[in-house]
């Protein structure tokens, strides 16, 4: 079997006004016919540059300074084209690009033009590379949409991308790339932006189409779970060089290069022992003393003097109520209204974002909240922060006095004392720090706002916080732009810690970070929680991450919590169909637990109408949470059991 693509000693340089930067150096690998090769590396490793070189899509400032990219088209046996030598926008390269090698991109939201219909954009690709008329092109596009699983391909031709969901857009993108039956598909992080169930469906689709059209796939990804499930061979790149390549099994079982080994060790997986730690490339050793440690003493003092009788009756149902709840959310509801119709008779349609959510977080505990995008988990966190007001329900929070206080209905002034007790760490480390403030200003701002301490106290606090998150205190006068994503996230954590909060809410704190940095941050959070007795509410879509950090996990779907259980129990014995679908869809970086693609059902597992009884939620039945085992609750209709708050 001949190779479709052979890259030898590829060198790419970026020519900047004052310097040349080597992005890719002496990269060599090959892709066989009908083979899937994964190009693995962290951000900045040069993997995207390699894919751009193959597609002839390098930016203007990039130059191929050496090596070759030999493309042997199986349709024209015997011919070999060196893509590295072709004019990037010449007709020969254009015939290959999109016709024989096509590409799908990471962002399904932005990679299709919003002004043109799906049909228009697919037909354009067809007519560009095949000599067909417009009606024939439409027919081919329709066939392709049917192949990638569009429910109504004929009508979908006339839809605009913004009318489709993220998963369907990525399918449309795949259809567009496949419609000319290319010999090689370059997939640049094709599922990174998708939810885990949609990711599994998309991966299955790529596999199916690959078999159907007999093509090769170059999969560019940082997700070793995807690699384990998709790739025949893998190529690991680091800093523009290939550090290891080989059959996926060989690399996974017996990684030769230390970088590959550390990458594999940094991925959280489900069968980790209770005390097993991730091993990031660079570990942080937080140093804790002085001010923050004092805050810890105070908390234990409060706990000791607490009266058992003050736990509200509604909470006493919870079996682990022996420990002290910091936050108790009860039957919380929030809906957004959407205006439909025309100017004269508009009707308000209420869309529930959070429906009947009950959740308890105990002192010193980490509760994980898992759900796909749009399930309402961020809205829930905003409600808890009282950044918005709920429609109904109650939020009880234990303030400084040690009493549970109802936060719903308090006005801005009354809320102020609680604002400093709950702190938030955001998803995007780049957007959440003001670029015009120094690190010192960023970390002390909460203290200034709440008027805590004097200048010496603040100075001491900042220095200590920097030590705690493992940053050099000499960096205090720098601005956020001089830090990497992981370091910025640590600054965000330091800012959140500065007020010594009772509850820290993390909204996807590691989803924008590379795996090794993610491991670093997760370990830091674990250490801080242990040493400072912190209480976390950890929101994430990544089950493995939540599994690693959380003690108890609540699964959220369509605004409701559908299952909640201690960590081990949820993964060992998931009861709710949605939890099962989620668990079935997670690609493990483990060759012994490959995805069972036959179990992945198309269509949304997150549609409450389609869940089987007794889990169905529709107009007729609106089940409540019922207890299945100790501390294990599921939203299901069961006549014999009464509703129990979690």
């Amino acid at each position, binding site marked *: 079997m001949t190779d479709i693509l052979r890259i030898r000693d590829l060198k790419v340089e970026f020519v900047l006004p004052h310097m040349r930067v080597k992005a890719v150096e002496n990269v060599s690998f090959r892709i066989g016919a009908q083979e899937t090769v994964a190009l693995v590396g962290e951000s900045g490793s040069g993997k995207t540059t390699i894919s751009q070189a193959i597609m002839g899509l390098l930016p203007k400032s990039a130059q191929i300074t050496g090596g070759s990219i030999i493309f042997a088209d199986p349709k024209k046996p015997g011919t070999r084209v060196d893509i590295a030598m072709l004019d990037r926008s010449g007709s020969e390269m254009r015939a290959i690009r999109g016709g024989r090698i096509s590409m799908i991109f990471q962002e399904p939201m932005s990679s*299709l033009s919003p002004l043109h219909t799906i049909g228009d954009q697919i037909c354009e690709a067809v007519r560009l590379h095949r000599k067909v008329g417009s009606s024939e092109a439409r027919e081919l596009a329709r066939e392709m949409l049917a192949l990638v699983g569009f429910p109504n391909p004929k009508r979908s031709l006339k839809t605009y991308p913004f009318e489709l969901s993220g998963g369907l857009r990525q399918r449309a993108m795949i259809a567009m790339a496949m419609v000319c039956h290319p010999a090689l598909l370059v997939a640049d992080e094709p599922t990174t932006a998708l939810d885990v169930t949609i990711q599994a469906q998309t991966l299955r689709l790529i596999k199916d189409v690959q078999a159907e059209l007999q093509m090769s796939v170059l999969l560019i990804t940082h997700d070793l779970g995807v690699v384990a499930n998709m790739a025949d061979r893998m190529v690991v790149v680091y800093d523009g060089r290939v550090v290891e390549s080989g059959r996926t099994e060989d690399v996974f079982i017996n990684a030769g290069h230390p970088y590959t080994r550390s990458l594999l060790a940094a991925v959280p997986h489900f069968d980790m022992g209770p005390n097993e730690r991730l091993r990031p490339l660079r570990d942080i050793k937080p140093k804790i003393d002085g001010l923050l440690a004092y805050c810890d003493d105070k908390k234990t003092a409060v706990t000791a003097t607490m009266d058992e009788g003050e736990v509200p009756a509604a909470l006493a149902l919870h079996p682990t109520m022996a420990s002290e709840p910091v936050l108790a959310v009860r039957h919380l509801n929030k809906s957004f209204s959407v205006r439909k119709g025309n100017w004269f008779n508009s009707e308000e349609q209420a869309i529930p974002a959070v429906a009947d959510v009950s959740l308890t977080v105990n002192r010193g505990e980490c509760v994980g909240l898992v759900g796909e995008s749009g399930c309402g988990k961020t809205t829930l966190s905003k409600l808890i922060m009282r950044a918005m007001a709920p429609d109904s329900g109650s939020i009880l929070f234990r303030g400084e006095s040690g009493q549970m206080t109802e936060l719903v209905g308090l006005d801005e002034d009354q809320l102020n004392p609680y604002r400093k007790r709950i702190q938030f760490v955001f998803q995007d480390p780049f957007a959440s720090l003001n670029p015009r403030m120094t690190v010192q200003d960023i970390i002390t701002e909460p203290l200034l706002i709440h008027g805590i301490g004097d200048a010496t106290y603040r100075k001491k606090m900042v220095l200590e916080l920097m030590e705690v998150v493992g940053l050099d205190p000499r960096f205090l006068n720098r601005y956020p732009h001089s830090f990497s994503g992981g370091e910025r996230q640590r600054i965000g954590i330091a800012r959140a810690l500065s007020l010594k909060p009772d509850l820290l809410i993390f909204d996807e704190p590691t989803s924008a970070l590379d795996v090794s940095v993610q491991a670093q941050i997760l370990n830091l959070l674990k250490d801080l929680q242990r040493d400072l007795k912190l209480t976390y509410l950890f929101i994430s879509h990544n089950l493995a991450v939540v599994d690693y950090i959380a003690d108890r996990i609540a699964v959220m779907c369509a605004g409701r919590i559908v299952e909640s259980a201690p960590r081990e129990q949820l993964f060992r014995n998931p009861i709710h169909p949605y939890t099962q679908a989620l668990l079935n869809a997670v690609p493990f970086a483990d060759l012994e637990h490959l995805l069972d693609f036959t179990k992945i059902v198309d269509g949304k597992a997150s549609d409450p109408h389609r869940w089987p009884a007794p889990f169905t939620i529709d107009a007729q039945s609106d089940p409540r949470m019922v207890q299945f085992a100790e501390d294990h609750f599921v939203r299901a209709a069961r006549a014999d059991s009464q509703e129990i708050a979690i």
Partner: protein
Amino acid sequence: MLTFLARRLFVMIPTLFFISVLVFVIIQLPPGDFLSTYLNELQAQGEAVDPAKIAFLKQQYGLDQPIWLQYIDWAWGLLHGDLGFSFEYNLPVTEVVGDRLWLSMVLNLSTVVFIYIVSFPIGIYSATRQYSWGDYGFTLLGFLGLAMPNFLFALILLYYANVVFGTSIGGLMDPEFINQGWSFAKAMSVAEHLWAPVLVIGTSGTASMIRRLRANLLDELGKQYVVTAHAKGLSPTRVLFKYPLRMALNPFIADIGNILPQVVSGSVLVSVVMSLPTTGPMLLTALQSQDMYLAGSFLMFLALLTVIGMFVSDLLLAWLDPRIRLQGGVSQ
């Protein structure tokens, strides 16, 4: 789409109503009216004025009536195409304005067309060849056009046309056609004279339009869907015209509504300098002498241009951009 159109048209009615009220109030704001100004002038010249005559004139022109009645009279007239009576010229406004309205329209429309025709290719060139010599050159010219006052440019042009070519480029037609009926020769003469004022008035608009198109297009060129289009194997020109350019058009079209009144009011000074028979200079004198119906008609004309311009740009936007067409009714 039909409901959108109907709604959009319906909204224009109250808008125009409020504008007309506003225009009328603003004209009435300075103390006195045309008659008192006229009287002062006569008295200053030492002429005796018969109070009975004044009262008669006041009644004749309806100036003794309460302001809201005056407004209703005026607005009712407007609806029937009766623009009122100019005190200063002692003629109906329609006759005073005469060809000026049409000439202004022709001049301003040609200016808008000029702005679009010139700025479009230059903007595209500048964006696609960012930081090239050509881009820098056009940028320099653009800043010159923006920085130089229009009337100064008009003066320079007038001077050099006279000194170098020995021709006068003032006015909108050869002198022999002024106050003549419309003929083919007169139209040709207008066409011959049009280029100079169009160039003068259009320069700054063109310059700012180039800057805007360049910035918009640069933003769009970096977008992911452009890379997708390239990845399909489309030729660079087709990619440019089908995808990013189409997206960059939005602010361009949204500008139509703004550009019309801008051009009209911006051309007043130029019209004075180049002695163009357009509405601008006449509006100025009408406002000075409190010739209320004449000034009101001009202001309403400007307002109408703005509202129509906005309507046209809204229609074009909805037609061009499916996101506006299909998502317009949904809001949070």
